[in-house]
């Protein structure tokens, strides 16, 4: 009986305490983040991978609509579909058939384009090990209170993701990169979404805390594309991202939808593959995580209660700028090594042995000659 009363008192106390906390400190404790970042990567090139670029651009549009500014988005597109020679409608990338929605538009800010999208650059962006000359827009300047959304799409396999048709990133490397981000406290929480074949294999090896992962298909399954457009001639979107976008269309900056709804996006009947998710490394309960915690950028606000009483009048700036400051003659560094170009001496090229093709060709010619005319004609050659 005593325990019961004690228990009831305890619960009453905690309830009142939590209510007071809610009143006084507002929205601070629903999540621990103060800013949002997004890293959106499309890893495939060539015209027939149009749908991967459309995937990434659609997610980019949604994320921008929900509030994350361009300065906080790192967009990596491996190929330029809008200005591709085979695009019947140049400067557009469509995500719905019948060309309903142009996701390219005129305010797309691509940070890494074309051949700059490599595994090395991707890992450098994540871990922050960029050369000092990298501009701010190409860096992921997150801190320990940033929530980061990472979206990857392309062709993948069991344990790897293919970049640019020539290299691949393995799930071990990705897990190690996230661990390095955690060591340096470069994120508060991280949501990882991958839309490739066998995507679930990419999040198998994660071991850092506060990671939540979603994939479009399990190991052994392929992610399928949604619908082709007959005028453009290629598939426009992948199924998982298509239904993900449909889900995101209903989200607005003030909505309270949580992650459990996101896990239900694209069931097997619509997607043909089985989407998977992983939440065991995430500290909070997914039901309490809002979609806008990752996809949008809802700022925490505090009212400024104090002000400082400033009574000094503004000092007039003395006109001493002419006398004291030495006007230095600034010059530009040589942008092109013009003197080298103009006064260029012909370079001493190192002698290389003839190329294999030429060598083979000559061998063939000689062989044919001696076969036809006999070896005794060698003396004419030497």
């Amino acid at each position, binding site marked *: 009986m005593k325990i019961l009363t004690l228990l009831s008192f305890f619960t009453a106390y905690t309830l009142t305490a939590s209510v007071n906390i809610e009143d006084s400190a507002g929205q*601070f404790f629903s999540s621990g983040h103060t*800013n949002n970042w997004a890293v959106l990567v499309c890893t495939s090139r060539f015209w027939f991978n149009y749908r991967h670029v459309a995937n990434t651009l659609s997610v980019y549009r949604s994320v921008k609509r929900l509030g994350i500014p361009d300065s906080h988005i790192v967009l990596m597109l491996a190929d330029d579909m809008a200005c591709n020679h085979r695009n019947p409608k140049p400067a557009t990338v469509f995500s719905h058939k019948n060309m309903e929605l142009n996701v390219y538009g005129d305010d797309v800010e691509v940070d890494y384009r074309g051949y700059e999208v490599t595994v090395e650059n991707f890992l450098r962006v994540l871990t922050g090990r960029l050369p000092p000359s990298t501009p701010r827009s190409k860096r992921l300047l997150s801190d320990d209170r940033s929530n980061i959304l990472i979206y990857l799409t392309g062709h993948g396999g069991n344990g790897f993701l293919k970049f640019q048709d020539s290299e691949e990133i393995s799930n071990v490397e990705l897990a190690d990169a996230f661990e390095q981000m955690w060591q340096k406290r470069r994120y508060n929480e991280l949501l990882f979404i991958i839309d490739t074949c066998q995507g679930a294999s990419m999040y198998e090896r994660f071991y850092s805390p506060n990671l939540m992962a979603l994939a479009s298909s399990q190991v052994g399954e392929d992610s399928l594309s949604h619908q082709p457009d007959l005028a453009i001639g290629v598939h426009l979107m992948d199924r998982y991202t298509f239904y993900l976008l449909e889900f995101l269309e209903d989200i607005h900056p003030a909505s309270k939808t949580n992650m459990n709804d996101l896990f239900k996006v694209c069931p097997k009947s619509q997607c043909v593959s089985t989407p998977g998710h992983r939440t065991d490394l995430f500290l909070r309960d997914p039901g309490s995580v809002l979609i806008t915690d990752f996809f949008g950028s809802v700022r925490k*606000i505090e009212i400024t209660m104090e002000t400082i009483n400033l009574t000094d009048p503004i000092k007039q700036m003395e006109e001493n700028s002419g006398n004291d400051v030495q006007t230095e003659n600034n010059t530009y560094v040589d942008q092109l090594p013009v003197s080298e170009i103009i006064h260029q001496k012909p370079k001493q090229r190192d002698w290389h042995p003839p190329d294999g093709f030429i060598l083979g060709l000559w061998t063939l010619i000689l062989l044919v000659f001696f076969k036809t005319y006999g070896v005794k004609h060698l003396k004419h050659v030497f």
Partner: protein
Amino acid sequence: MGAPWRTPERRRGKLAALSIAAMVILVGVPLWWKTTQTYRAWLPVAQINELAKLQLQLSADVEVVFARGTATPEQQKKVPVTQTQDEDHAVDEADLSLHRLSESPCGSLVIYVIPESSSLLPENVNVYIGQRRTALLRIGAQMKVGKTLKQLLAHLEPRVKQILQVMSFSHNDITAALSDRVRFSPDNKESIADSMRAFKSSPGYEITFSLLNPDPKSHRLHWDIEGAVQTYIQPLLTKLSPVANFSLDSQILYYAMLGVNPRYDSSRSAYILNADSLAHVINPVEARLGSNAASSNPVLNFLLYVPDAHHSPLYIHDHKKREVQTNAFHSPRWGGIMVYNVNGFYQTGTNFPVDVNINMAKVMGVFLAQLRLLLGVQSTAPPSSFQVAPCGSSGLADWELDRLMWSRSVENVATATTTITSLAQLLDQIGNIVINDNIAQQVSSAVTSLQLAVAELEVGNLGFALQYSKEAILASEKAFFDPSLLHLLYFPDDQKFAIYIPLFLPMCVPILLSLLKIVSEVRQRRREKQAKKD
């Protein structure tokens, strides 16, 4: 006829095979091992592990001075330099003159104990914290006469401790500064908000002042930002220069609207912005604010919004629907926004556009308060019997600067230690990363600076401790984020086999086979010899 293996060719063949095998094993294998080794410079791993334990000892010099009438001369503990405090000064004048008595270096405090009957402090105030590093403590009534030194000190100790917690550092502050390493499980929710609000320690910050004019057709705004910054903001930044570098710029944005529509309140005949809708104000504007592309320092944005003529006056209401005095709000780790109404400066019906001169003192007062909050200067409210002097013209009291320096030093030391230890761990785990000499040198200098910083913190030299901790953090960040440390070389073992087998197998098979042949011939010879003997 000799046995087949006795012929000279066979012997030559055997010698050739043996010498080739010898070359491969003695010269080839070590050469291959050496040339495929990654260059790893030496790192002071033992010292790093020692630092990882991070035993910090902070000591602050406190001087307690007894005014006349509080203690008998034998009871004086420290340097006996006192002056008579009998006159009826105002409290702040006394504070100033006391400061001139003993110029205390940064990190230390002087507490003057004044008698119960002194009229310097008002009735209900027991402690007065001055602008510089002094405090006045009123002694309790029971300590009038006849008490021993021990009792006097025992009475004073908790009071002095309380003052120290307000003016220097408290347990909560240090734990918050160590939030990188210590999983911050606070009992005080206010301190979570505090830790989330202030920017993390960084070698530099950029401050941008923006004037948003959505209605240039109606208002022609003039603001003397250069003069205002020079007069009001620059003194604070100069005072904070040991902590970080600051770079300032300003801009004016035209036709920049807020993202939310304010509600019209007819009772006050003004437009109202609720606290709930404030969260959505920042994002549409942020896309239009620029930032310096060359630096990666955190940016503090201060926006001054002048509402358009159709939506004037615009007031902000807090969560309880009360009007906010300052008409401003701020967002943690981002900056602040203030709404400045100009409809009072002109009558309706005047010819637009109207010239408006913005009162920079009022605006900068609010921005300065927000700047203090965002930099982590503000602390939790002091206990009730304390009276704190308003900060001077520079906007920052000396002891507030000390507080900031304490927490920054601890934070820097903790962050640098974490960086160095995780770098050492990473380099240990992944054998394929090349460690260049410059990285090793950065790591060594970081370790040295850390050791010096910890030593200075122990002694209490706050200025030097902060300087060393800044050097440590710079060196450790440089080492950790060096572009050459990319662990791209992840080769699973089966891939390693796939690379080496086509190179080495064709070469090794003939050698092995010939060696085996030699061995089998030797064995056969021995058997024949055995057979011959028998």
